[in-house]
């Protein structure tokens, strides 16, 4: 609901809010420029002295105005010819033209009405209203994504467009809320929808009928500082019934031109003050710095528009059409999807197609549409559930848990839950786990135990598919291709072999950089830009499902390096470890922004075992800034699988690596990285307490063991891996 409230106003009003924000940002410069350019009056200067100075230079002066920027303008008639100028209060002389700035006028009219009069004003007000709705719904989405209002500035993970969108939004939203509400107020005021402000005092019926009072004898004029002045109008020459009109920050009054007496006075009403404040907040006139800040924030709108459209398109592209979807009442298998961005629908489509091909009748729908009473012929229910942010239900699964918990009796047909998530999030697959736990608590029979798919991994999905096939006694091969990026051909330049002695043949493979097009270089696409820890997807011959490997090198190293262990019967690892220099593979780059050391100078604790050392070695190699890195390296035996054994001592000499701790498992007294951490508990705790960042790479069991060990080590210090994860100081890359 909130997402729809965000998406549709955003798409519909995109052009309007873009024009509003760009023109608004441009307009924000003028008050600041005027403030800088306007000759300012000395603080003790009174209105009487100023008026005197001006009248000396321009005897026909008719009106003196002071704008909120401090700029003083005088209007006069000189022998019937009207004149006006910006005045230097020190001399009373004109120093600049008082004509309106034509550029500012043009942009103002674009901003407020698209040059279309009242119709345009209403359209722009609609744009402001859209901006308000977008700000409010967007703020709710950010809070949901980060796990609550208190985590407003929590670090973000996920695809670049989405992160940029939120990064800009959570700063700019304050300004956009202010600008859009004040805009609506001002429009309402323009169309007389708000009560009038006060009225000036009634014009005096009785005046002295004299003229020629000296300006310094006008009541109060010698006391009022120029800073309080808004407007002083002189009486018509020769009209004895006319008066001086004075407007200040406090109100409006009439002064007699014969004896200088105050004839009438009206204070500004509270309502007028509110209106003026709103005008100032919107235009920045009288608050130039605020205006500039609001203008800068408004500049975020086009960027958010562009990234917003990208997010929407990615979601659409990821959500395929499901062909031959069966009605819920006739399907044997009910497939329910809980998806936020839409990518889980792609998996559902693949599963639907494979099951349909295997002769099943399948209904696919959102989890929010869960209605067991309609599943009259269903034999099983399969849930594909992503997680939103900090464990919340994704958009298409809203209300599922409430509905499930409300049932007295759960359906008889068994259920299988497959969670989709990203291990770099602390709440990995949390919603799927909640659903599985709720189903179990209700005594719902289980078709398959809960499984998870990390970062849309086709392998994870295919593995689960085989388990599902076994349970259904059908042959089920799920080859899901989440829209593959453009692939490149990589040529092997060198290989180093390890591990044959410990029955774990492993190779460090180094590929040449592929040729990068100018466009890729400009936008940083493909292999034009990558860091150690990013992933490459290798497409083995004979399979359309890519296998992901962590990169051990960055673009600036000049090569692409991965560490590959040959798995018995492994299609891709078999092909890769058989490559000879000159051979080629097909691969694409996938960014992994969640697994980066980051720009901080805080110490790094890198923990890896086996091939997991690859990206960690890449971080050490790239550590030219000599950030203190502590590497915990689990291996079988130093003589067989000490990857990067040649480079690591040299990196230590160059201070790219402070300390290398090895844990060796194939010896008389096996030692794992967990043990090494425990041995080093005091220092690890100290480092983490002082802000160190922990990065873990390797097999799932190793990572779980490391997390348990760290929990144990850090408990006395009152820290947990979960807290560190939430702070973005504990990241894992697990396979």
């Amino acid at each position, binding site marked *: 609901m909130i997402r729809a409230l965000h998406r549709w106003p955003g798409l519909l009003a995109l052009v309007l809010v873009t024009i509003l924000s760009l023109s608004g940002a441009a307009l924000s410069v003028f008050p600041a420029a005027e403030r800088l350019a306007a000759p300012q009056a000395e603080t003790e200067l009174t209105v009487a002295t100023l008026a005197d100075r001006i009248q000396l230079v321009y005897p026909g002066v008719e*009106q003196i105005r002071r704008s909120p920027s401090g700029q003083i303008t005088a209007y006069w008639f000189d022998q*019937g010819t*009207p004149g*006006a100028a910006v005045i230097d209060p020190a001399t009373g002389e004109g120093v600049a033209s008082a*004509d*309106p700035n034509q550029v500012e*006028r043009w942009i103002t009219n674009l901003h407020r009405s698209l040059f279309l009069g009242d119709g345009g004003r209403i359209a722009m007000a609609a744009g402001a209203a859209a901006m308000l709705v977008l700000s409010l719904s967007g703020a709710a989405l950010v809070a949901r994504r980060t796990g609550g209002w208190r985590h407003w500035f929590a670090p973000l993970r996920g695809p670049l467009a989405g992160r940029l969108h939120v990064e800009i939004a959570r700063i700019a939203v304050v300004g956009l809320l202010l600008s859009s509400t004040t805009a609506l107020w001002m429009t309402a005021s323009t169309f007389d929808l708000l009560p009038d402000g006060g009225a*000036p005092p*009634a014009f005096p019926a009785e005046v002295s009928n004299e003229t020629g009072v000296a300006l310094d004898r006008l009541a109060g004029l010698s006391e009022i500082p120029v800073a309080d002045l808004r407007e002083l*109008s002189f009486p018509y020459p020769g009209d004895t019934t006319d008066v001086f009109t004075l407007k200040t920050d406090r109100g409006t009054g009439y002064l007699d031109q014969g004896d200088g007496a105050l004839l009438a006075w009206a204070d500004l009403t509270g309502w007028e003050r509110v209106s003026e404040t709103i005008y100032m907040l919107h235009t920045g006139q009288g608050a130039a710095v605020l205006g500039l800040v609001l203008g800068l924030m408004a500049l975020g709108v086009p960027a958010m528009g562009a990234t917003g459209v990208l997010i929407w398109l990615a979601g659409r592209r990821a959500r395929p059409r499901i062909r031959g979807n069966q009605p819920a009442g006739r399907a044997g298998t009910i497939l329910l999807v809980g998806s936020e961005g839409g990518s889980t629908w792609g998996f559902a489509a693949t599963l639907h197609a494979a099951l349909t091909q295997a002769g099943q009748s399948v209904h696919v729908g959102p989890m929010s549409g869960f209605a067991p009473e309609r599943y009259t012929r269903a034999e099983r229910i399969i849930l594909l559930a992503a997680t939103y942010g900090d464990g919340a239900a994704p958009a298409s699964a809203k209300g599922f848990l409430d509905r499930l918990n409300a049932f007295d009796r759960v359906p008889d047909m068994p259920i299988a839950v497959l969670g989709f998530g990203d291990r770099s999030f602390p709440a990995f697959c949390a919603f799927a786990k909640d659903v599985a736990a709720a189903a179990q608590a209700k005594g719902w029979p289980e078709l398959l135990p809960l499984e998870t798919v990390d970062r849309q991994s086709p392998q994870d999905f295919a593995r689960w598919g085989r388990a599902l096939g076994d349970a259904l006694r059908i042959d089920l091969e799920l080859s899901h291709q989440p829209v593959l990026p453009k692939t490149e051909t990589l040529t092997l330049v060198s290989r180093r072999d390890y591990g044959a002695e410990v029955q774990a043949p492993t190779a460090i493979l180094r590929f040449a950089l592929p040729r990068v097009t100018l466009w890729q270089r400009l936008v940083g696409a493909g292999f034009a830009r990558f860091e150690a820890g990013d992933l490459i997807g290798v497409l083995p011959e004979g399979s359309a499902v890519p296998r992901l490997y962590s990169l051990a090198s960055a673009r600036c190293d000049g090569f692409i390096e991965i560490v590959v262990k040959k798995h018995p019967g492994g299609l891709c690892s078999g092909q890769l470890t058989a490559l000879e220099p000159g051979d080629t593979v097909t691969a694409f780059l996938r960014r992994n922004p969640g697994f980066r050391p980051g720009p901080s100078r805080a110490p790094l604790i890198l923990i890896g075992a086996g091939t997991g050392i690859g990206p960690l070695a890449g971080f050490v190699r790239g550590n030219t800034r000599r950030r203190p890195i502590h590497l915990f390296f689990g291996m079988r035996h130093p003589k067989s699988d000490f990857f990067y054994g040649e480079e690591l001592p040299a990196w230590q000499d160059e201070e790219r690596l402070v300390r290398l701790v090895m844990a060796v498992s194939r010896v008389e007294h096996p030692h794992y990285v967990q043990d090494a951490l425990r041995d080093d508990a005091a220092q690890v705790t100290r480092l983490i307490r002082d802000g160190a960042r922990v990065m873990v790479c390797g097999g799932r069991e190793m990572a779980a063991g490391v997390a348990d060990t760290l929990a144990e080590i850090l408990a006395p210090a009152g820290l947990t891996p979960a807290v560190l994860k939430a702070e973005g100081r504990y990241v894992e890359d697990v396979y």
Partner: protein
Amino acid sequence: MKSLLATLALTTALTLPSLAMARPVTLTATLNNYGGDGAYLALYVTDTSGAYVGSLWMAGGKSKYYEHLTDWYRATGGDTAQVNGITGASIGAGRTLEITLDLADALFDAGYTLHIDAAVEDMRDSPNEVAVPLTTDGAGTSVPGRRYVASFAYDM
């Protein structure tokens, strides 16, 4: 064609002769190129003593800006009822306002003066931009305004 007569009869204490004694008068005001947004113009009539008699036309629809038509505002207290039904759009720089009204014969050659107050956003207010006596002889004679009005004339 708007009937001013009723308005005048309603808003002034002035006793007008019978309604039949009225004639169509065309008011034409051409603005100069002052380089600003559309101008607000208030056209109204005062009597021999300079007292406000009634409004003829208000060019400009947003009443919150009327206070910048200083003399008119002072005379009427900003009462929008004075211009009910005789309000039009503001007039752009270089453009012409042309309206035809039924004016009572009694307004002519009787010491009445037609005034125009003008105001433009972010520019000077120009009360009494134009002040011409209403006379049958003066009809068709063009007079310039003080700041915004290049020429004004009333034709019978």
